[in-house]
């Protein structure tokens, strides 16, 4: 069967968003009247339009006479490595502190590249950790801890 995958993907994404948000708006938010629009009025109108567009794209894609695949391959390795690195950064910034967080983020991120080389990545991570700490924590004084809560305890215990 001939399917235009790009349009199908876009159409289904729009439909999904419209249905989920439309359902939430319908269930939780009062619609109101035109004179005094409730919090659900505008969202529901938008969801209706969006669902229409999604449906149009989906149907058009299913009827299309030309099979068009998606461009490029899906970059699994980069997706996993980069998402992991970013999530870890967000979750453990307070605990690790800026210096260690940047070091770990850069290191994990580097795994995204097939040409990754531990020595090079380690050096880059160290350099970036120094630069970021210097610029963001000491330079522009963002309120980010340089040393995280995990290490402050360690420091008082050692010395």
């Amino acid at each position: 069967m001939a399917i235009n995958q790009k349009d199908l993907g876009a159409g289904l994404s729009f439909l999904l968003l419209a249905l989920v948000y439309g359902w939430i708006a319908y269930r939780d938010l009062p619609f109101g009247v035109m004179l005094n629009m409730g919090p659900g009025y505008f969202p529901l109108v938008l969801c209706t339009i969006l669902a229409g567009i999604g449906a149009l794209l989906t149907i058009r894609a299913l009827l299309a006479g030309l099979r068009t695949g998606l461009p490029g391959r899906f970059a699994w390795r980069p997706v996993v490595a980069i998402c992991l690195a970013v999530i870890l950064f967000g979750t453990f910034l307070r605990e690790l502190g800026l210096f260690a967080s940047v070091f770990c983020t850069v290191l994990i991120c580097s795994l995204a590249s097939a040409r990754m080389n531990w020595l090079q990545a380690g050096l880059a991570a160290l350099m970036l950790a120094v630069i970021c700490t210097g610029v963001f924590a000491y330079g522009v004084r963002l309120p980010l801890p340089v040393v995280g809560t995990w290490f402050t305890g360690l420091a008082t215990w050692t010395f």
Partner: protein
Amino acid sequence: MDLLNHLELGFSVAFLPINLAFCLLGAFLGTVIGVLPGIGPLATISMLLPLTFGLPPVTSLIMLSGIYYGAQYGGSTTAILVNLPGEASSTVTMIDGYQMALRGRAGPALAAAGLGSFFAGTVGTLLVAVVATPLTALTLSFGPTEYCALMIIGLVSSIALASGSLVKAIGMICAGLLLGLTGTDIYTNQPRFTFGIVDLLDGLDFVAIAVGVFGISEILRNLENEDLPRTVIGKVTGLWPSRDDLRRMIAPALRGTAIGSLLGVLPGGGALLSSFVSYNLEKKISPNSAEFGKGAIEGVTAPESANNAAAQTSFIPMLSLGLPATPVMALMIGAMTIQGITPGPNVIVDKPDLFWGLIASMWIGNAMLIVLNLPLIGIWVSLLRVPYNILFPAIVTFCCIGVYSVSNSPFGVYLIVIAGLVGYVTSKFECEWAPFFLGFVLGPLFEHQLRRAMLISGGDPTVFLTRPISAVLLAVAVVVLIIVAMPAIAQTRKQVFVEDQA
């Protein structure tokens, strides 16, 4: 003369040593990040936004616009030297710029881009200064109905300016409007679409989404074909263009500036369209049209002038109406709000020093770019030589730090991941994100004005047609929509964007 007094006030503010220093720093940092392939002005500003938090309002806005020009200009450097678009609007510069570089004329190509941009920036800035006061006076009489109509024009023209399928662009706008509504409803205090997450009560974080879509997903796309060889033009010699080159640059620069200035005022990505349009125009009418695609200096000058002029005039709707015409302007508005300034027609009255200082610094910023870029070209070249597998972890890290310091919670950082993934997947479906961001920014504003308009008119939707200004604006929107949808225009439109992209 009023204008001269205003400009004098502006320059007295902009020439304060602290403002000069931060303008220079902004332009420098903007170029450093903007030179990196795939990182456009929006991602650059999002990343560097936290650097401006500690500064006084005027200085921070001046620095931000410095970053904006730097990023814009850095993109052209990448296009010419590496044949990678640093940002969408320098895609066209790549065609002839890289060819010139291959023929050992990288220097003149860079100089052409720089001089063209500077000229366009000067004209654009003057235009902003001239138009700002009368336009602001006009808009002070605008009520909610007129604002709604104005925003509809904005949304419609962003459909027109999107380069892909029209239906998808409309879909992306609706999705943007919808997601923009996330957070507490200001009329009823009811949380909407927050899924019980406290961080969402204030809405989705614009910076995080922008960084995710334009930073992370771009990196993912680049990593797909890591093995493609990249040739960085190693040496840049003979920077100054010859007398003949200069002569050939004048007319394209003028035409590019005119096109860019006009299209830049339109909401939703005028910079991109204007560079395509001016390139195609030059290709048609230039006496050297045979050289296009093989390193014609006109093919670098025209689009660079156009996109810089557009970058300049896109400030007009933001400064005079408080309406963001592009996602970058939305970030500027965000930055103003953080500094405690409500953007809109009142700024020019309440804070003339800020308003005119910003305008004056636009020109200074452009001048600095020339001073900065041409002599420092060696630095940018060496930056481009850094292997990508060292660059991208650095970009990801800057993104994380930037977003964390804006949102001050892990949630903002998680949002980067979600936005990055969604952006990556939808890029496979050829969905464009510029219309989404316009919708996202205008969503809450539009709903607010719509509800006000309905309250005032007693629930009568015909008020949009009976009030003269709004009727005219809506008529314009309808005309634009019809023109865009006409099959003949749709065909040419497709050509404008696709023809030279290969």
